[in-house]
C-alpha cells in the first residue's frame, strides 16, 4: 500500500504545561490526513523515544515553550539515534530563538516551527520531506 498515511508523534517533553499548541497541531494534522499519536504532557526523552519506537512513526514532533529545548532536544535526538531510529524525522515547535536554530539543525532537527506557522505549512513540510523507509 503506497498511500498509507504519514504517522506523526506529537509530544511535549519537559515540564512546561502549555499544551494547547500541541493539541491544536495534532488536531490540524489529523485534518490534513495524518495519523497523529499524541502522548501528552511531561514526557521524558526516554518516553518519547519508546513511543516513537513502538508506534513506528515517520516523524517525531516536539513542542517546547519552556526554554529547555537546548537540553531536551539533543537528548531526544541522541536517544533516537542510539535506539536505531535514524530514519525518523525530528521537528520542533514552540518558542525556539533563532540563535539556537543552527545548533539544533546540526544535531538532526529537520524543521523548526515558531509562532505564526500555519498548520498547512507544517503539513506541506512533512509531506515534502518524509523519506521512504524500509
Amino acid at each position: 500500500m503506497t498511500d498509507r498515511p504519514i504517522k506523526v508523534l506529537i509530544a511535549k517533553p519537559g515540564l512546561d504545561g502549555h499544551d494547547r499548541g500541541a493539541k491544536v497541531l495534532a488536531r490540524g494534522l489529523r485534518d490534513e490526513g495524518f495519523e497523529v499519536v499524541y502522548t501528552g504532557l511531561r514526557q521524558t526523552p526516554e518516553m518519547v523515544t519508546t513511543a516513537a519506537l513502538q508506534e513506528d512513526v515517520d516523524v517525531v514532533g516536539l513542542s517546547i515553550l519552556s526554554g529547555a529545548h537546548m537540553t531536551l532536544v539533543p537528548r531526544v535526538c541522541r536517544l533516537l539515534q542510539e535506539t536505531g531510529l535514524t530514519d525518523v524525522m525530528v521537528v520542533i515547535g514552540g518558542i525556539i530563538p533563532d540563535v539556537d536554530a543552527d545548533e539544533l539543525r546540526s544535531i538532526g532537527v529537520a524543521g523548526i516551527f515558531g509562532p505564526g506557522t500555519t498548520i498547512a505549512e507544517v503539513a506541506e513540510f512533512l509531506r515534502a520531506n518524509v523519506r521512504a523507509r524500509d
Partner: protein
Amino acid sequence: MSTSSAPATGVAGADPAARARVLTDAATNGDRRALARLLTAVENRTPIAEAALRVLYPKAGRAHIVGITGAPGAGKSTLVAVLIAEARRAGRAVGVVAVDPSSPITGGALLGDRVRMQAHAADADVFIRSMASRGHAGGLAATSAAAAAVLDACDFDLVLIETVGTGQSEVEVAAAADTTVVLEAPEMGDEIQAIKAGLLEVADIVVVNKGDRPGAQRTASQLRAMLVAVARVGAADRGHHGATEGSVVPPSILTTRGRPRPKQPEVLITTATSGDGIPELLAALNRHRGLGREGPGAAARLARAQAQVWSILAERTRASLAESHRRAGTTAILQAVADHELDPFAAADRLLATLRE
C-alpha cells in the same frame, strides 16, 4: 486518503518472505524495533505481513487476548493503564493494541490512547501500539486481530485490544478476543438499555467504571439483574443437541432449541483512576481464561478461525476476479447487474463458475 501519503514501506526487489523471516526472527527474539516494523507491515497489509503472519501463526495462541470496549470516555484507556500495572506486578508481559477512529473525510486520525498509558513507556515488557481504524467499522481496524496475533507470537502473555469508543452494536472485538470486557459508566442507562441486543450481549465481563461516582452501585445492580439473572433463566434449557444445520458453531454453546446461549457476564465495579477493583478485574479475567480452555472458549476460537479464514477467502476471491485475464469478464457481469439485465445472485454464480475454469 491520498493527501498525506508516506512512501511505500519495503525495499524494492527484496523478497518479502526473506524480509519477513528476518523481521520475525528478530521480533520473536525480543527486538522491539523489528516488532514495531512487523506491526506496520500488518497494518499496511504489505506482502511482508502475509509472509510474517504465516511464520508467526503457529507460535501464537498462547496469550490471553482481552478486548476492552465501551462508550467514548467510559475510561477504557485509563483502565488499560491500570490493568497493565496490575499484570506487571504479576510478572506478565503485556501487549496493547489501542484503536482510535480514522476520519471518514480526510483519512487522518488522532491516536490519543497512549496519553493514559505513558507511565509504562520505560518498561521493556510493555508494548503499546496505537492503530487508526482506517475506514473499518465494527470498533477495530481490519488488521487489529492480526496485530494482536503478532504480539501473542512475540511472547506477550496478556494482549489487550482497546476498541474505538463504541455505541450499541460494534461487537467485532468479541471475535478477536478470548475475553471481552464491556465498560459502562454510571447512569448511562436504565434496565431497558441493559436488555437491548448488541454490545452487552458479547460481554464476558461487564465493568461499571468510575465507581466513585454516584449511581455506580445502582447501575451495577441493574446490570446484574438484567444480564446475569436473565441469562440464567435462558440457560435452564441448555443442552448439547441443538440443531446446527448450516452453521459451524459447535452445539456446546447452543441451547436445546438450537439457539446460542446467552452469556452470563460477571458485573464488577472499578475506579480506574484510583485502582479500586482492578485486582478483582484481573482475577475475573484469569477465571474466564481458565473457562476458555474448554466449552464456550473452544467454540469462540473456532468462530474466530472461521472469521479469519472467511475474510481471507473473500479477499482472495475478489482479487482472483480482478486478475487481468478475468477482469473484462467480471466487469461485463457487474455491468449487466447495473443495467438490471442480470440479477446479483445469478451474477455471483457466474463469477464463481469463472473461478473454476
